């Protein structure tokens, strides 16, 4: 019979890298996403285009969707029919969803034209698509929860599509209890989780460089930081950016 030696007791503050699952997870996370990549103080010079507004717009819209949805949910599905304030909150919920999809679809198209999956960023593209798909289902269940004529008709029509592929037996659009659970718990959690994962992957891999970027571009030959959002090349190059462009491990990509 063999005996395992107990690890020596550690003092507080002493290196905790004992090879436990938690230690390994921490090392992996810090290698993939060190704090200066998670919350960067700078971005590559090409990240200065109107095209980068839409992803953030979608996230901002999601904040308003969740905020207005929480107010609506806490007051119950009938509240907005009888309260002027409820009606306004319901309108805000609707329009934040419309804006969310506008931002998201434009963001998706722009990322397509950027071929943003390049350089090991394929999971970023896939999680972006997943967030689009899950958001469509979440919005659909929201339309079913309106408890008005529109939701009645949408449920009546949509049942055929769902039943035709055998889904309607479990995802019953006429069962308000089921749809309520999907819309205020499961699907928001799914959208939130996929969007967070997508955003973290963007931070891990960085923003994809221009399609025609090459090693001898002027932007790659100097290592400086520009201040105040001036156009590239025209802005002040104030300081060597060695401290702002940390050397990243080669295996940073997933």
């Amino acid at each position, binding site marked *: 019979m063999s005996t395992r030696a107990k690890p020596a007791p550690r003092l507080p503050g002493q290196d905790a890298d004992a090879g436990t699952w938690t230690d390994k997870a921490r090392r992996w996370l810090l290698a993939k996403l060190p704090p200066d990549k998670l919350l960067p103080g700078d971005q590559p010079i090409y990240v200065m285009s109107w095209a980068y507004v839409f992803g953030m717009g979608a996230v901002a819209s999601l904040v308003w969707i969740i905020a207005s949805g929480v107010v609506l949910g806490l007051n119950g599905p009938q509240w907005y029919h009888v309260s002027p304030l409820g009606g306004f909150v319901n309108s805000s919920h609707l329009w934040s969803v419309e*804006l969310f999809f506008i931002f998201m679809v434009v963001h998706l198209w722009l990322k397509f034209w950027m071929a943003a999956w390049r350089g090991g960023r394929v999971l970023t593209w896939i999680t972006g698509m997943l967030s689009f798909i899950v958001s469509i289902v979440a919005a659909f269940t929201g339309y079913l929860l309106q408890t008005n004529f529109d939701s009645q008709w949408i449920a009546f029509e949509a049942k055929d599509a769902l039943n035709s592929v055998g889904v309607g037996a479990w995802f019953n659009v006429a069962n308000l209890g089921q749809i309520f659970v999907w819309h205020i718990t499961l699907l928001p959690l799914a959208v939130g989780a996929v969007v967070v994962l997508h955003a973290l992957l963007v931070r891990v891999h960085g923003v994809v460089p221009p399609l025609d970027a090459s090693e001898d571009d002027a932007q790659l*030959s100097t290592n400086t930081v520009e201040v105040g959002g001036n156009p590239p090349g025209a802005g002040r190059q104030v300081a060597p950016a060695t401290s702002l462009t940390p050397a990243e491990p080669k295996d940073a990509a997933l």
Partner: protein
Amino acid sequence: MTGKGAATSWQKRDDVAGRPWTGRVREYDLLKELTIGVVVVGLMVLGVSALFGAPDEPSVSLKSWAASAPADFVATAAKELAGTSDTAGYGPPYNSTPDASQKIGPVDLQSLPGVRLPVDTAQDFVIGPLEQLPSPPAALADWTAATEQQRSDWASAYSDALAAAPDNDPAKVADGSYGPVPALTGALADMARQGTLDGVLQGGGTFYNLDYTLSLLFLGDGSYFPGLAASQHLSGDQWGVMNETGDTPGQSWLWLFSLLYQVEPFKSSPNADALAVVTMAVLTVLLTLLSFIPGLRSIPRKLPVHRLIWKDYYRHR
């Protein structure tokens, strides 16, 4: 391979896209940008909400149906008794009507779950609710005592006679052998007009209810409810999948799904729903996995929209 095809590959290579950026950078405040985004989008949301609001067309009840279109209500109830309504012939998951399910080629996904939400249209929509009345109509006893064939003959004959009557008016139906059916459908219409049927059909006699399957199926078997939807441009052939009541935009992101219902072979296919859903599923998978598909993933290089997106970068190279 270092050609242009490789430039849009998903694979991580030792090139500008695959390596961490080591060139010029610009100052960037992530949290400040997020805050500004939330404020700006919030102003847009509140402004548009105040300006346009949101539609809230009141729901239709069995009571309003029976009051507004009594002939349609009675005709639908007769079809439910005869087993000739849309719901009665729907197939899974409501009943096991032969050859009713939609198929994709030989694949019958609709039948996979079986009859998981059973609906007996005569019993659930008409007989059962009438039995809940404090004084059930005497005609119920005649119906219960009759054979299946006799019931079907009575109800079908009355359903045909209603369709032939002026204005489909039950009061103008020609004489015939309808058994207890006119009394049953008339009693159900009275029950609906009094508002009792809504509660009974939804709750099945219980206090709580969150399941509107029976009410919705019954409502949809008539022509009153679909007629209201058509007047609000919500029918399938009116791109209704992506429309909302009034002029407010609906689920416009479903435009492609809606489009499929407007074109052949989907439009006239008895399997239109199954074909549309599977087509959308395939297209969605293709878009999700686009970066793995040679040719499709090269489109961004062939149609260089990226030159507009990164025009500042390219100008200063």
